[in-house]
């Protein structure tokens, strides 16, 4: 396949993932999860390789990738910020927290800052409703986040 931007060892890793699922097309979603684990996102080249390995059309792979919100074709920031928009967080003011992040980082939800440091996303209920509103930076959970606490969170990672 021409024009591949994937490094050879990552390509091998990806093919090995497909093989570990017996190149079974029913395992597409499992393969995509692993692939996103390897690459951080699912660029077109990766989807092409997966399509070929699982013997399905690229359109099918893309159809699946674009259906599920967990999969992304855009690289995330070094510190992906996710704000829970579950109902509990919503009624406790998550929207204002999002607005503050958008203002401070100067990006919209779904975008990454030009320096690649932060990306902003919303997610549905992480199940920490007792801590609403909840913000995740990477794996770390911040509970009871108020709009004026946002700058401290950003400062923690901005170094």
């Amino acid at each position: 396949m021409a024009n591949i931007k994937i490094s050879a060892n990552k390509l091998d890793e990806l093919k090995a993932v497909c093989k570990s699922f017996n190149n079974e097309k029913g395992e597409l979603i499992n393969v995509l999860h692993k692939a996103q684990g390897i690459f951080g996102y699912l660029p077109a080249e990766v989807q092409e390789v997966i399509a070929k390995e699982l013997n399905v059309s690229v359109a099918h792979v893309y159809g699946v990738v674009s259906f599920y919100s967990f999969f992304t074709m855009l690289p995330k920031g070094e510190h992906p910020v996710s704000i829970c928009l579950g109902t509990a967080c919503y009624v406790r003011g998550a929207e204002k927290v999002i607005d503050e992040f958008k203002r401070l980082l100067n990006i919209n939800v779904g975008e990454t800052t030009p320096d690649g440091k932060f990306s902003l996303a919303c997610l549905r209920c992480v199940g920490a409703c007792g801590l609403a509103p909840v913000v995740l930076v990477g794996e770390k959970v911040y509970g009871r986040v108020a709009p004026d606490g946002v700058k401290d969170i950003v400062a923690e990672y901005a170094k």
Partner: protein
Amino acid sequence: MSKFKMHILVCGGTGCHASESDMLLDNLKTIVSDKGLDGEVQVIATGCFGFCEKGPIVKIMPDNTFYTQVTPADAREIIEEHIVKGRKVTRLLYVDPENKETIADSKHMGFYKKQLRIALRNCGFIDPENIDEYIARDGYEALAKCLTEMTPQQVIEEMKKSGLRGRGGGGFSAGLKWEITSKSVSDEKYVVCNADEGDPGAFMDRSILEGDPHSVIEAMAICGYCIGAAFGLVYIRAEYPLAIDRLKIAIKQAREYGLLGSDILGTGFNFDIELRYGAGAFVCGEETALIHSMEGLRGEPTVKPPFPSVSGYYGKPTNVNNVETFANVPVIINQGAEWFASIGTEKSKGTKVFALAGKINNVGLIEVPMGTTLREVIYEIGGGIKDGKKFKAVQTGGPSGGCLTEKHLDTPIDYDNLVASGSMMGSGGMIVMDEDDCMVSMAKFYLDFTVEESCGKCAPCRIGNKRLYEILDKLTQGKGTREDIDSLRNLSHVIKDTALCGLGQTSPNPVLSTMDNFMEEYLEHVHDKKCRSGQCKALLQYIIEPENCVGCTACARNCPVNAISGERKGVHIIDQATCIKCGACLEKCKFNAVFIK
């Protein structure tokens, strides 16, 4: 649990985990070792205690002392005072908000008093990563009983007699579903556990999987025995890493103990379980969509019939139940259908787990007998409305449900009463709203969710919900008309009548139920351009009180859109058409002349 004198149980649920309960756990373990108490005191991480509001939770057994909001730094004091000297750390005990008394024993806390824990029976009691602890609490006894003493049909009869209904939302009889699947003729059948908990604000399934994964595994094996399946699949949200880990560990342990795999307990019965991951699509909670997703396809639902019980995973008969439903099964087998059926109301047996959230004092996971009233849940268990505000409504059933109001407070909660009240059980989310919540905005919030989560396959859901959302948005912007109200109603009914799957058919419920219960708020938004809760920013008016205005010009100078006019030392006026409601004037006015209407 016999060899230890004392057990320190630390909540390892996601909520407490997020508040550094893992560090707390480490500290406790280290200090126990330092003190040479390893042989006497056991420190374990358990599943969710439910009382997330006050997390991280630490419980000391056997005296049942319940510590709340414990930080890693508190570890030393707990060990040195409570464990070594037997003196409770009073400052970490729960304080009753009513009479300000400290309560040491969780049994006496309002939050737990009215609860009855069947599905959550082991959550917070056992180490979910240790199969022995599950077995010590009668674990896998039900499976053994089924395999050795009962025929599949007898188990199904027992299930039917228990009256257990699907806890995922539909409320279909679990026993009947098993029976239909068992009667479908096929060389291969599947048991599927739906752990794609997508209802925003509901997290009971995750808590069960994190706190008691074996109960689900055991139930799936029992189901497999009944319907004639040798293979089970758990479809679980990828967003639940902790639950996934615990489930994997549990499956591994069950295999090691011969409780999964071939020839289980020497009975010749084979059953094994694999995991399939969701990828962020609410619609995959719908069983046909879930099955398509497990097959590596877009999670689009298909028309039923055929039901999965007849044609499911790769066209084979497939029994789909959700986590909470399965968690009830071993108890029903052990304690008997009659015992289970004695709990609850006439048509809704047993208990239901609710995720209590929103404007309520005690946010958390609760389990109550069917038939408990909303009042008991909100005021006794939930500890009332936060900050002494006034109760307005509670949303049950998430985006598919509706809201219940003051007049429903004394309605016993069960499947049928909720439907009769214009809502539904759903998976058990319960979001409490107070006077500060705008019901039009609430409906808009849920429609925003549905629009985002619609799969796009059928036109009424794909376009209709978008239009519903747009009309609601118009209302919250103060641009609504009387015709919009009629449109909302007609559109809602048509979507209910014509959408393909359960997600679409129920998506207008939040609109219809808020319209039924809070029509006056809708009309206020339309006619008076007013939002009584003040939540709809576009409907706020910043007004300058002439009495208080001294004409300092601070507001006018700080207005980013030059909406404020007035002479120096003269009264200033805000042009409402230009105002963007940023609030800068309010912030800058030192004379309390600016207020919001």
